């Protein structure tokens, strides 16, 4: 299978705090990779390296064979347009309506007519089950609705890669399951490569082809959902079973 994302010996520190200590990871076309780990372990930091929102202190991140650290401006934006991202809080622009948010990347790309953008927005909102909400403002939406609109925005430019930052965090179990179904459906319909970071194991088992556990700045374990469940790794077991006692120091 063709590798579309290569992360090679990536390190990242914030001041004295070393968050990533040499991460190596590959993602093949069409794969659904889920990164798990405790809050603050660097999952979101790693995810933001994939679309160039952050750059590594050392090591390399290649997407579609382009080293993101060596490209800037228009070149970087061209790569970013092939990568959609759903942010943890959806990150919808408060001053824009739902429809304007979903169509923002298209309207600011200056390549589509207004009518084309309206059609695309309508289609994407329907795909995430939010048809008819285009005129609403983000402030009037629930958390689950915001995530779905964020997802519609992320897929508006037909990306080849989708990044999900904690897609189910803060949602009730039913809405979380709805989002998980949506992620799986989108993958089937649009044949998208995806990386999701989460600490919700239900979501991880439901959406992953492969699960990677990040612990103490390195990859502690990787495998299929079944392999993760039967890993025999004390760190993985403690995390997936949600126990306070174990090798992971709870601070």
């Amino acid at each position, binding site marked *: 299978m063709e590798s579309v994302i290569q992360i090679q010996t990536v390190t990242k520190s914030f001041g004295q705090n070393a968050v990533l200590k040499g991460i190596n990871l590959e993602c093949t076309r069409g794969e659904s990779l889920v990164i798990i780990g405790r809050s603050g372990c660097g999952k979101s930091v790693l995810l933001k390296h994939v679309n160039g929102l952050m750059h590594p202190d050392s090591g390399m991140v290649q997407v579609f064979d382009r080293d993101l650290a060596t490209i800037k401006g228009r070149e970087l934006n061209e790569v970013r347009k092939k990568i959609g991202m759903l942010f943890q809080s959806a990150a919808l*622009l408060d001053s824009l309506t739902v429809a304007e948010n979903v169509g923002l990347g298209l309207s600011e790309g200056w390549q589509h007519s207004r009518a084309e953008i309206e059609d695309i927005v309508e289609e994407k909102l329907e795909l995430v089950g939010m048809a008819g909400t285009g005129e609403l403002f983000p402030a009037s939406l629930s958390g689950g609705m915001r995530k779905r609109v964020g997802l519609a925005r992320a897929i508006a430019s037909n990306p080849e890669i989708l990044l999900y930052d904690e897609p189910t965090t803060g949602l009730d179990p039913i809405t979380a399951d709805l989002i998980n179904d949506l992620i799986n459906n989108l993958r089937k319909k649009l044949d998208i490569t995806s990386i999701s970071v989460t600490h919700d194991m239900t979501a991880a088992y439901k959406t992953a082809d492969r699960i990677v556990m990040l612990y103490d700045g390195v990859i502690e374990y990787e495998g299929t959902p079944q392999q993760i469940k039967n890993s025999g790794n004390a760190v993985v077991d403690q995390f997936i079973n949600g126990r306070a006692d174990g090798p992971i120091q709870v601070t």
Partner: protein
Amino acid sequence: MGNGLLLIGRRAINFIARLGSTCILLGKSLYYLKDAPRSLKLIADQCFLIGNKSIPLIVITSIFVGAVSAWQAAYQFKFIGAPLRYLGAAVGKAVVIELAPVLTALVVAGRVGAGIAAEVGTMRVTEQIDALDSMGISPIRYLVMPRFLASTVMIPILTIFSNFVAISGALLVSILFVDISSETFLLGVKNSFQLSDMLAGLTKSAVFGAIIGIVGSHEGFFAGGGARGVGRATTEAVVIAAVLILISDYLIAILMFRL
């Protein structure tokens, strides 16, 4: 002693770094002016917010600035025995050259500069700026350039408006309390009026507008640390803009008004 020097040194380095980063943001905003024709809606929205919504505040402050200038000038004229027929000339000149540009800028820095820093800062801490980046939209083109341009254009327009309101305030005080006729006052304003003074005042305003727009955007753009960080950015935007407005006012005066 050593610690004190270290602290001063660190603050000086931080200040220079901040100034440098503001200049870089200014340079990038100037670069993105090339996209202004395609961003007219964003610019027009900012012009409305900065210009139209500041009018009530400008009316109130300018009318009192004009009134107090006329009162104080009349008081000093009486003290030195100068003829009151020159009151219009003195007040008109002071308003056009100095009072309207500086006070409009300071008042707008409080309203608009703080507003820009709070809005952009909130967008930073809620990942809205990251979202723009992730869609391949430059946040500097989308957020900073329109605010910078609108502020640079609208502050001079507000200053022209402030000139009229302030002189009207001065006229009212002169007629009601100083006992000179409106004809005498306005003749003084007219005779002392020079287009070069007005242009100098408006040039200052444009510089002040640029300072308000870029400082507000910069403080918001690099805000961090949640609500407290946004609050700090908002306060700093107003303080830094006010200080820079007064410093640049002096520097422009040296350049434009040779003694």
